[in-house]
């Protein structure tokens, strides 16, 4: 399992936002994406997750390997915590949700409807979803939004455990997660210049 990204150019709304991105992510590694709002971190993650095509460049080793978590967690408020997690486990062809419940200390909330959870609890449930997918590469877009200090630590532990089991993670975040051996990729230098439109849909008209 390893993810190799070579000379990737990603676009938002037909306009390149990041170009020339290359990195490797091997088992046990974590890569933190940094950059100001609107710099293209979300676009990069969505492209890597296969939700949108890249303008150019190669992504290798992403197919069916990625568990993606965005701002919205895909939770149904009228389903209980258990049901939400079981559903996602089944979609990914798995059954066991106990480890995920355990890791994010959702045990007491198992029967509660997701709609009755607090924002932080919902977020924890959303992150627990990553564990039940069984996918090796986690791609997280601002995972710590609405988490308190304890929960952030809980999340960091889960990431470390995931890495220890041979997983990898790509995390776009502003805060320090306390992951010791984390590599950092600042997307700032990769921002596409306004003149560089190679492959963009606007190119033909300029």
């Amino acid at each position, binding site marked *: 399992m390893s993810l190799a990204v070579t000379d990737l150019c990603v676009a938002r709304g037909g306009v390149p936002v990041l170009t020339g991105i290359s990195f490797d992510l091997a088992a046990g590694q974590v890569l933190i994406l940094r950059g100001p709002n609107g710099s293209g971190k979300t676009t990069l993650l969505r492209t890597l*997750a*296969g*939700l*949108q*095509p890249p303008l150019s460049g190669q992504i290798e080793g992403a197919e*069916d390997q*990625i*568990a*993606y*978590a*965005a*701002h*919205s*967690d*895909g*939770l*149904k408020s*009228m*389903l209980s915590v258990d*049901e939400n997690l*079981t*559903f*996602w486990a*089944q*979609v*990914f*062809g798995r059954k066991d949700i106990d480890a995920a419940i355990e890791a994010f200390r959702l045990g007491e909330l198992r029967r509660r409807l997701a709609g009755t959870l607090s924002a932080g609890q919902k977020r924890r449930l959303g992150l627990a*979803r990553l564990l039940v*997918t069984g996918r090796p590469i986690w791609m997280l877009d601002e995972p710590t939004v609405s988490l308190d200090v304890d929960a952030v630590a809980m999340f960091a532990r889960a990431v470390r455990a995931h890495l220890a089991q041979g997983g990898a993670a790509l995390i776009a975040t502003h805060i320090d997660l306390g992951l010791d051996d984390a590599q950092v990729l600042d997307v700032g230098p990769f921002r596409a210049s306004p003149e560089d439109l190679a492959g963009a849909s606007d190119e033909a008209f300029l």
Partner: protein
Amino acid sequence: MKALLARDLALALRAGGGFGLGLAFFLIVTVLVPLSVGPQSELLARIAPGLLWLGALLACLLSLDRLLALDWEDGTLDLLATSPLPLEAALSVKALAHWITTGLPLVLAAPVLGVLLNLPAPGFFWLVISLLLGTPALSVIGSFGAALTVGVKRGGLLMSLLVLPLYVPTLIFGAEVARRGAVGMETQTPLLMLAGITLGVIAIMPFASAAALRVNLR
């Protein structure tokens, strides 16, 4: 796939799931018809098959905007698109869930409403058969409309505009079966056409819907 079906059914049945809204709409429309065209039983008997078909079609249409919009808003569709389940399959399952929660109740309710509209006795059988064959096509075509307009805010009206013309062949053949059945004419040809449309649509439409949804997820 089973999980998705079970989840969609569970969601539809729980509070706020909207189950029964289509059915209620069907009932109300059927009740309003005699109030608007008059109570003459011969007239009602003549137009009953067509009206019941139209009512079922509109009830089906009304519930379509829930088919994908909710999953779109809470990010479920993003996550489903990155899951091992192909979008084509996911959309077929969602259309199936829509049919079970909307189409099937309409089929079962139609004979009762047929009584209200004085549907001739031989018509009941054919009405149920034609709806049973035709409503799956309505759900599948509807999922295509929903996939096209999922990214549009307040896309409900737009979706109706897109979906209704696509409903024309199904409506024509379906209502024709019910109409002919009610007056004792042979129904084989339209029945075969209806079955053909439904099968063709089930086989091919999910690909178009998935293509449209992928564009919207970009």
